[in-house]
């Protein structure tokens, strides 16, 4: 087949990239080779636009066993335990086919984790949809939620935390990010680096079909009217087979049979074989006739580019073939020797005994393009919030509006569709600041949370980037966990647009700064560009997934108030910042202003003192303050418990709306028994922490003195109305 410009373009390659391919090969590629280049050189696999920025992120620390570059990140949680985790996007497939797109997103991230020898113990997700009024939103939401649940419930791993947000910016490009967390023995981590010559390369798992061909290339392009036609490039998930693959792999991992293992994720067999060979500076030769195929007459091109799910590539130690084969046969999975490693540093593909493709490994990996794309700084917004110019609103009305809005309504409608309890180690289920999962048979636990703040990032990407890291950190602190490390999923628009590239670069500057200051390194992650349709890019939406450690787990405090007549202590300074607040958005449809400032020193000091208060058992409940400000956080503490509050207006001259709805950072609410208040205050004072003792809990009524009083049952109803109506 003659390779025309049209064919090159259809493979998502630029003409200059094609010229580069010819130089590297010193000839024209054939059609199969072109397909392989397109799979390896697309944005999704090559990180060509993001690489230069990503390398600035802090990735090291005493707690880090493995940083970015492997299937997932690995951290040390003491004793011989390690936690393996990563987040990944499946945005494009989920928009085209929500159920399968979301399901295979979960399946893919789970494989990344168990490939490394970890048993997955928790799933999380961050999902963003368009406006609830948009005609597609309802079916997309339904599909995505059932897809996430369908996969996780079936494989038997609890889905414990997540976030669901709505905004017009995602009308034509939803975000579906899935995170998986696993537990492994520190000395039993498996990597993807091939070692040794003439070692057996084995294909295990499902058969290869024609599904998902060019999935990674699709995920590297913007959408247009014809996106629906891309349905055949969405993979189909089979959680049942994945469960078998999980158990079979973990069984084989009990001894030392495996040299290297890599899951076939994006770009399937191509990227898995190239990555293993590239990391080991080896060559790899595959006999494609041996690939177990689901359909007849599949061509080498289709086999190499298929993204059929639930498959792995393993390089085995000599003489372990029969032993390994028995395990996979027990689990009714395919096990086929398809090739060998060698020292010629090529990817060599044979079909019917003929060489049908031969590409130097480094041309696909280390010599893949890297772009220093042009970017511009975000112009700071000039908008200043002036409440005097806005229509007057009562505190109570503003609160009701927020509580009943799609973004702040109770989301148990969603979380009740996920099995959160299977494996019986879920100590804190979703709905709290972070979920808590016990390490099986141990007294310790991890806390996990995912967070994003697209509105803040859009307005001021550096501050936004800092803020999400802090918010995530704070959520772990609020359940008594010491934050250890993060994974990030960077969802952005078209990187060829210099504004978008600027948002990316600046968000990363913010993330870097916060991670460095908080000793909260990035150990894994994923970049998803080209989120947009017809030249309209989404808001920059980096998502942070964090993991923290609780050394001695006990019954979690949670954020629900525990008793009446407790003191309510507000930790951190309140300035009343309303720019980019949900107060303005929900009540006035104003989406303007700068996000609240992030003061890393305060953030760190406040967080560390909260952990000390936890250690000394001085708290009844804790909640972090985020969107919606002080009043929304208090409401959440009341709604879950039915216990009300009585707080007075601020003593200093401050606007009540700013005081209650301001989204200033680094703040927490503590519920403290009256006899412990002195102790708590003493610790706060000695550590120079700003706090205010703002009032008491009381029976049933949520009351801001001199403003309004409302029954907590009514708050509950208001908060639960929206989903029922939807």
């Amino acid at each position, binding site marked *: 087949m003659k390779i025309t410009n049209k064919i090159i373009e259809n493979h998502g390659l630029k003409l200059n990239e094609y010229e580069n391919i010819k130089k590297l090969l010193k000839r024209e590629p054939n059609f199969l080779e072109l397909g392989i280049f397109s799979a390896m050189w697309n944005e999704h696999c090559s990180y060509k636009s993001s690489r230069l920025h990503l390398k600035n992120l802090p990735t090291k620390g005493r707690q880090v066993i493995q940083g970015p570059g492997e299937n997932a990140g690995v951290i040390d949680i003491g004793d011989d335990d390690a936690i393996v985790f990563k987040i990944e996007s499946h945005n494009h497939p989920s928009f085209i086919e929500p159920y399968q797109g979301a399901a295979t997103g979960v399946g893919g991230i789970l494989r990344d984790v168990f490939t490394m020898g970890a048993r997955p113990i928790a799933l999380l997700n961050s999902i963003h949809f368009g406006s609830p009024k948009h005609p597609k939103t309802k079916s997309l939401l339904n599909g995505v939620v*059932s897809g996430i*649940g*369908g996969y996780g*419930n*079936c*494989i*038997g791993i609890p889905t414990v935390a997540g976030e669901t947000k709505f905004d017009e910016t995602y009308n034509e490009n939803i975000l579906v990010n899935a995170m998986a967390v696993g537990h492994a023995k520190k000395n039993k981590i498996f990597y993807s680096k091939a070692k040794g010559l003439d070692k057996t390369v084995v294909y295990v798992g499902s058969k290869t079909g024609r599904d998902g061909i060019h999935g990674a290339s699709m995920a590297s392009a913007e959408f247009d009217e014809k996106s629906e036609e891309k349905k055949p490039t969405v993979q189909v998930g*089979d*959680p*049942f*087979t994945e*469960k*078998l693959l999980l158990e079979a792999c973990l069984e084989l991992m009990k001894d030392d049979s495996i040299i290297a293992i890599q899951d076939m994720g994006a770009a399937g067999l191509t990227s898995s074989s190239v990555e293993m060979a590239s990391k080991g500076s080896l060559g790899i030769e595959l006999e494609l006739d041996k690939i177990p195929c689901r359909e007849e007459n599949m061509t080498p091109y289709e086999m190499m580019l298929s993204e059929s799910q639930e498959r792995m590539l393993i390089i085995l130690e000599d003489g372990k073939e029969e032993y390994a084969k028995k395990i996979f046969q*027990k*689990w*009714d999975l395919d096990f086929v020797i398809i090739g060998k490693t060698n020292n010629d540093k090529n990817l060599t593909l044979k079909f019917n005994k003929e060489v049908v493709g031969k590409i130097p490994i480094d041309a696909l990996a280390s010599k893949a393009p890297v772009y220093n794309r042009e970017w511009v700084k975000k112009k700071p917004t000039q908008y200043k919030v002036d409440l005097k110019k806005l229509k007057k609103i009562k505190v109570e009305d503003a609160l009701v509006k927020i509580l009943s809005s799609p973004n702040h309504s109770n989301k*148990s409608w969603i979380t*009740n*569709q*996920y*099995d*959160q*309890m*299977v*494996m*019986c*180690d*879920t*100590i804190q289920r979703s709905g709290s600041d972070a979920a808590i999962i*016990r390490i099986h048979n141990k007294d310790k636990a991890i806390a996990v949370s995912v967070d994003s703040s697209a509105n803040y990032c859009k307005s001021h990407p550096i501050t936004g980037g800092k803020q999400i890291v802090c918010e995530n950190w704070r959520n772990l602190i609020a359940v008594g966990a010491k934050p250890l490390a993060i994974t990030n999923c960077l969802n952005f628009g078209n990187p060829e647009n210099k504004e978008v590239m600027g948002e990316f670069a600046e968000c990363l500057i913010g993330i870097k700064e916060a991670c460095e200051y908080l000793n909260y390194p990035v150990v894994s992650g994923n970049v998803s560009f080209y989120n947009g349709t017809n030249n309209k890019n989404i808001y920059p939406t980096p998502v942070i997934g964090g993991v923290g450690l609780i050394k001695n*787990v*006990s*019954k979690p405090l949670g954020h629900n108030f525990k008793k009446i007549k407790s003191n309510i202590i507000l930790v951190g300074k309140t300035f009343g910042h309303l720019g980019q607040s949900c107060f303005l958005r929900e009540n006035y449809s104003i989406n303007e202003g700068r996000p609240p400032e992030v003061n890393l020193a305060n953030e760190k000091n406040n967080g560390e003192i909260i952990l000390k208060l936890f250690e000394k058992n001085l708290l009844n409940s804790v909640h972090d303050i985020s969107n919606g400000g002080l009043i929304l956080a208090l409401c959440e503490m009341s709604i879950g418990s039915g216990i009300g509050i009585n707080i007075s207006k601020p003593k200093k001259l401050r606007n009540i709306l700013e005081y209650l709805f301001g989204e200033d950072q680094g703040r927490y609410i503590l519920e403290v028994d009256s006899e412990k208040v002195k102790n708590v205050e003493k610790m706060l004072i000695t550590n120079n922490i700003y706090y205010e003792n703002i009032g008491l809990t009381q029976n049933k009524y949520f009351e801001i003195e001199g403003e309004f009083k409302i029954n907590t049952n009514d708050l509950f109803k208001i908060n639960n109305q929206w989903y029922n109506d939807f």
Partner: protein
Amino acid sequence: MKSSVIVFPGSNCDRDIAVALEKMQFKNQMVWHKETELPKSDLIIIPGGFSYGDYLRSGAIAGKSSIINEVIKAANSGCLILGICNGFQILTETGLLKGTLLRNKNLRFINKDVNIKVLNNETKFTSKYKKNQILRINIAHNEGNYFTNAKHLDEMREKNLIAFKYCDEKGNINTQSNPNGALNNIAGIYNSKKNILGMMPHPERMIDKLVSNDDGINLFSSLLK
């Protein structure tokens, strides 16, 4: 007391139930579905999960697997059998329990803590509970909507074969307290000899106060006697 847990491909509550049994001092063994012989057991448990991926119909393929013939033989000779969630579905597929489990009325997977009432505490499974005791217990299923014919329902009423019913925290059995649309709020049933119990809720998830509560413990301690 010797117990055996049958493990099908796709079972996913097998470890959870094993943890519960070991905690309660059962001598437990895991039995792989391809086995054709059962170890000597006083109690056989078919755990929750998605055996064979719920393909065809939940429980349908497991109901025809090689080990299941041995389970049927053991059941007919009076061995105690407990099917939880997917295990209950499998027991109805084998005919050891009558009736069927339809899709939840809201057509969605449901995971939450619900209340159930102990209707009959005079069986080997429930003797440690009080009659009409209310348990708070977790459910997690897509097909938990129990249905059976009028004749069987009458028989169950007459012979006291309904084990548990969904109720509210005060014990009221009504539509509001029915999470999945099950006929008469039925959450678990016995066979006529009362040596087989099938239930949708997960007692093995309720044995540890740190995780949930310990309302499930008495089911296991009843069996220990």
